[in-house]
Structure formats: structure tokens, C-alpha cells
């Protein structure tokens, strides 16, 4: 997570909101195979996306309630763990959200491209 000194009082809140929007997509994207909470956190962390545990577990529950994830307890390991994976409906949602994401990234990249005038400002 990028942590800077706050640029404006609402900066942290805005950053949080921006990140919150992608959490569902990030989570769904990693659950083609069944995973338990902590392993999912580590996997996302390894790819550079840090999610707080107190945020992820409730999120998994809510996605399950919405029918996007399936879950079951697995008691085979050293301790019982709850495993989550995409439901068929979740897979469809993931597909549609991904398409939306790629579209948004293209648009945003275009929007954020510095204009000629801004480049001039920066160099001066």
C-alpha cells in the first residue's frame, strides 16, 4: 500500500474508496480454485495487493451470500479451514467485471495522460 503524508484532509478517504472498488474484482480473480482466507491474503500480497484481514474475511462472506462464491469447511489439514471458490454465477460476474475493468483502464489512461500544457508546466 502506498502511504504518503496526507495531501489533503480527504486524501486518505479518497484513496480508501478507490481501493475498495477493486477489492471484489481482485478477490474473485483469484478464486478459480478453492482457497482459504489466509492463503488468499498471502497470494494477493505476493502480487503487491495488500488487503487487511479484517476487510477480506467479511468480504468473502458477503460474496458468498450474494451467490458469487461457494464455501466449505475442509478438515483434512492440521486444522479446519474454510475454503472459498467461484460459483458459476461468480465466474460470469468475474468475466463481465473484467471486461469493464479493461475498458475503464483504457479510458483512465487516456484521461490521465498529461496534456501538452501540463507538460510545459512540469518542465518549467
Amino acid at each position, binding site marked *: 500500500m502506498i502511504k504518503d503524508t496526507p495531501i489533503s484532509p480527504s486524501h486518505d478517504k479518497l484513496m480508501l474508496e478507490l481501493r475498495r472498488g477493486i477489492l471484489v474484482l481482485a478477490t474473485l480473480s483469484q478464486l478459480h480454485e478453492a482457497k*482459504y*482466507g*489466509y*492463503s488468499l491474503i*498471502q497470494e494477493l500480497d505476493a502480487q503487491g495487493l495488500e488487503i*487487511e*484481514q*479484517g*476487510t477480506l*474475511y*467479511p*468480504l468473502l*462472506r*458477503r460474496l458468498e451470500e450474494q451467490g458469487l462464491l461457494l464455501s466449505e*469447511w475442509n478438515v483434512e489439514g492440521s*486444522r*479446519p*479451514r*474454510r475454503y472459498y471458490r467461484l460459483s458459476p454465477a461468480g465466474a460470469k460476474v468475474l468475466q463481465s467485471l473484467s471486461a469493464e475493468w479493461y475498458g475503464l483502464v483504457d479510458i483512465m489512461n487516456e484521461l490521465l495522460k498529461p496534456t501538452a500544457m501540463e507538460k510545459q508546466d512540469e518542465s518549467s
Partner: protein
Amino acid sequence: MNLVDRYIYQVGRRLPKGQRADVEAELSSVFQDTIDDRYQGDPSQDEIVALLKEFGSPEQVAASYRPSAQYLVGPQLYPTFKIVVGAVILALTIGLFVANVIGGLFGPAETNDILEQILKGVGGYFQAILSAFGSVVVVFAILQRFEVDFEDEETEWDPLDLPDVKDYDVVGRGETIAGIAFGVVFLILLNVFSDRIGLVFTFVQEPLLNEIVQDNLIWLNLAILLGIGLNVILLWQGRWHLVTRLAKVVIDLFWLFIIYQFALALADSKEILVEAGLVEPLPTMLSQIGYWILIIVAVAFVVNTIKWIYQALGNPTKTNKLGKA
């Protein structure tokens, strides 16, 4: 009991029973995973504290399991809530008014002091409003708890249904002309027949209570004249300005003063009516009816003036600025 167990218990007790055991089991499992991974299963007290802090307070974590439960009345119910509160307050206002008037007419008068009666009435009114508001909140909080949604997705919103923007600054010509005409007619009638205005009975020669009119004749004349003057200015200027707005408020307050004078005199009028030969309960009823009618008029007056000031200060000013820009 160790800290982790205490933490999980605090989260669990904030969750619905159906969910509790399962979430607690899961939290316990992920805590063990984290502790094994980070501290090889043997954390110090400080490390546990740091880990729990990272998770967030039990309230916060429990709340994120059930986001909708964080509202007493959530955004989806709020529009309906507002309508119901408005309707209840309106119904109560009308109901209490009617009840008070009937009570004032047929019940024994507790006090002759108008101010005291008004204060009592207003106090009771606010008490009733508060408890009614509380009841509505309780009902909606229960609906929120069960996640009832009133939103009717069938009806589509049509922009063409939007009402016109009313420009409160524009003076209605018809209204103003009528105001002047009625003012003049009333002024003439008042002064020509000032000795004939009062309660008229076939068995009494003179109209009763005419002295109330006589005593206030100068004030009545002044108020009507000021009203006519204001209407003439408005007709000439075509728009409301700050000075004319203030003038209207002053004239309204002046009328309120006159109404108050009348109400005071009426409240004291029982004896005069008895002396004139009226038999009880007629004098009591008449003085009370007159008194309460004036109170209703006074309240209506105040409400109207407040509404008018509110309109003058609210949206129209913005519309006006936009219009001028």
C-alpha cells in the same frame, strides 16, 4: 482465556446468532494460520496485540460482516421515512389543534391568561411531536433490521413531471390589485360603520363588544393603510425587494399585535355579555369561541409569515442570481 479468544468472542457477540459460530470458527482458524506463519506458532503478547490491531476493532470487523445493520434508517428507507414523518407531524398538528379548540370550548378553562394557555399548548404539542417521531423511528429501525425495501422499481422517473421553478420574487398583479381593492372597501366599511360592528342579537339594542373595535380602531386603520401602501409599491415595482419584504414582515407583526389585543379583550368579555342579559352558557361559549378563533388565526398568521420568510430566503434567491447572470 487468551487475547485472541477474547477478541473473537467480542466480534461474535455482535453478529446474528445464525452466523456467529461459523464466523468465530473461521476467525479462529485464520488467526492460527497467521500466527503460525508469522511467529512460527509462538507469538509474544505484544505481537498478538499488534496482530489484533491490524485486524481492527471488534465493532468494526463485526460491522463489515453486516453492512446494512449499521443504519438505524438506511438510505433506501430514508425517503419513505421522511414522507411518513411529515404526514404524522401534519396529522398531529391538525388533530391537536382540533382537540384543543374543542377542549377550550367545552372543557373548563384552566386559566384566563392567553400566553399561559398558548405556552401550555405549544409544550404539549412538542411533547407529542417528539414521541410520535420516536415511534416512527422505532418502526423504521425494525424494518431496517429485517431489510425491508419499499423501493418500487416499476415506476420510472420521468423528468417531464418536474414542477416549474417558482420565482418568489415576482409580484402577482392580480393578488396585489385585489389586496388594494379589499383594503379600501374594508377601510371604508370599518370607519363608516365602526359603531355597528360587534355581536348582534335581536333582544339587545346595541351591538355587543363594539368597544373592542372602538378601542383598536386606530390600529386597524393604520394596519390596513400600511397594507394598501405596500401593495401600491409592489404593483409599481413589480418585484419583491429587501425593503418591501421587511415591510411585509413588520405589517404582519402589527396584525399579530392587533389580533392579540382582540383576543385579550375577548377573554375578558364574559362579564359584559352576562350584564347585557345573555344566559349561561352563552357568554362563556361566545367569549371562548372568539378567543380560540383568534388564536387559530394568530398561529396561521405566524406559520404563514415564517413560510413566506423561508421562501424569500431559500431557493428563489439562487434562481434569481442564476436568472440575472
